[in-house]
């Protein structure tokens, strides 16, 4: 059950090309699991920006001097995130969370590969910690445009059995995409499960690679949202249900975590003709 909390910023710091914000938001940390997200009000109470911005939750601390805190990572994309980047410690920030369905954890100590693109790595780090606690082998693949857009590399190295890095410009690790190195990582680690978070094109590539090997894969998608709580119907994408039927499902409440092979990647952005309730030609 999500909460709406009139929070206060405890800290805001630059991390490479990104910024990480920690918000005092009592009640939210206790409810949060890896993969949950937060919807953040931007622009203040009189703002002309009515819609919340959604961010994957990075870290939570359920106790401390200031009470529970929740941390998320963002990159300046537009006016809302530009406003957010100007906030300072002590500023008010209204947050709603935790939202969405989190990653499902394997029941036993299996071999797990995590794939993060850009700041999409943020929710994978608490996931890695949870998986390690269960005794899983954890291998991590991180990719980004350049080294300043790799997030959480040190944490990843600390937690994972192996870390592979790719950058588009070759400024760190292998020049190229995560999909270039992923097959070798999966083979070497004998991965049983794959988790991924990052841009849609990356999620699709990772899903395809996992599917080709018959490895179950969970992906956290990023769709444009207006509300984050399931009432606006803007963040839909075509997903195949257990009954084999495709529906336009809300990524905010039915996701953001989906099984990679259930998402109709070719059809994202469209309504497939065979979707439930699709217009008849």
């Amino acid at each position: 059950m999500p909460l709406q909390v009139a929070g206060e910023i405890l800290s805001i710091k630059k991390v490479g090309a990104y910024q990480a914000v920690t918000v005092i938001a009592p009640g939210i940390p206790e409810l949060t699991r890896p993969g949950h997200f937060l919807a953040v009000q931007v622009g203040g109470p009189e703002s002309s920006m009515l819609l919340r911005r959604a961010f994957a939750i990075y870290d939570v601390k359920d106790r401390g001097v200031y009470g529970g805190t929740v941390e998320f990572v963002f990159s300046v994309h537009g006016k809302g995130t530009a406003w957010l980047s100007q906030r300072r410690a002590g500023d008010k920030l209204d947050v709603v969370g935790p939202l969405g369905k989190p990653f499902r954890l394997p029941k036993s100590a299996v071999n797990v590969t995590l794939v993060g693109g850009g700041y999409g790595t943020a929710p994978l780090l608490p996931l890695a910690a949870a998986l390690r606690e269960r005794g899983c082998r954890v291998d991590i693949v991180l990719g980004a445009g350049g080294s300043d857009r790799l997030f959480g590399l040190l944490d990843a190295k600390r937690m994972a059995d192996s870390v592979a890095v790719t950058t588009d410009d070759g400024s760190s690790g292998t020049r190229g995409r995560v999909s270039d190195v992923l097959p070798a990582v999966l083979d070497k680690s004998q991965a049983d499960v794959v988790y991924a978070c990052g841009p849609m094109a990356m999620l699709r590539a990772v899903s395809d690679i996992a599917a080709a090997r018959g490895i179950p894969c969970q992906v956290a998608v990023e769709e444009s949202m207006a509300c984050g709580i399931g009432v606006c119907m803007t963040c839909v994408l075509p997903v195949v249900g257990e009954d084999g039927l495709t529906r336009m499902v809300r990524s905010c409440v039915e996701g953001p975590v989906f099984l990679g092979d259930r998402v109709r990647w070719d059809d994202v952005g469209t309504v497939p003709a065979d979707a439930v309730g699709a217009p008849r030609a």
Partner: protein
Amino acid sequence: MTDMSTTLAGVTFPNPVFTASGCAAAGRELDQFFDVTQIGGVVTKSIMLNARSGRATPRMAETPSGMLNSIGLQGPGIEEFLTKDLAWLEKRGARAVVSIAGGSVEDYALLAQKLRGHKAVSMVEVNISCPNVEDRGQVFACDPRASSNVVDAVRRNTTPGIPVFAKLSPDVTDITTIARACVDAGADGLSVINTLLGMVIDTTTMRPALAGLTGGLSGPAIRPVAVRFVWQVHQALPHVPILGMGGIRTGLDALEFVLAGASAVSVGTTVFGDPTAPVRVLAELQQALEQRGIARLADAVGLAHRPPETYVPERPDPVGDELVSTDVFEEHS
């Protein structure tokens, strides 16, 4: 304590703040944030006869103090709505205002029949801003005759005593013509207004931002337009109850609609950014009425239409010696 109850065509609601169709699903998600039985009613997302996938994405673009949406009436269809959504509202004890949408007069008639006799339905709102498949996709709400046919069909198939409200589109030349046509056809009240058709061009892709090209504009950006329509409809049809909506964000925004002639209001787009907005707006509206010495919400409905000589100080001092007597309002009501 101001009496916040409001009576819409014979049905009394404990207070005048409702959700808006398409901005609250069927209440279940918002019930996580506030008790949906505490507001006047939950106006559900327009339901059609059959399941509908809606339009492709992107379906939304944020605009200054507003947003553009082109969802395309995605929904499960009336049968699943009855067994899941309406059943939940009934169990929860919420007052449901069911919004219906169709592509033909017959669709609307069948939808009304499906709802007939259902205990949880407090009111029916007819979304007439839909393309008429039998008339080259012409929107019902833009034509008095088509609007009239739909309202007549719904009224005839709805449980007697359950109010039928027609939701008017602002994209018309003269809203009062449509309003009269709806009322003459049996509408017990009017919901004013639906979204305004708009468009955003993405200057990066240099293409329309929405997959559906155009979308409905909502949010505080349209509030003055909505207030004007409520004013005009109330002036033309002073005895017809109005459910007012369009960019309500605060209790004072809601008060503007009430003063213009609305007996109740819907809080819509604001919910997306502030899920507890309906209960906040209700508390703020009540406080605003109390500060103005207004004993009953009903006394404030349409008050802005009174002649200037009955001027009442805008903010009487609530602890002052001379509280504004509510007597001055009787002339209007």
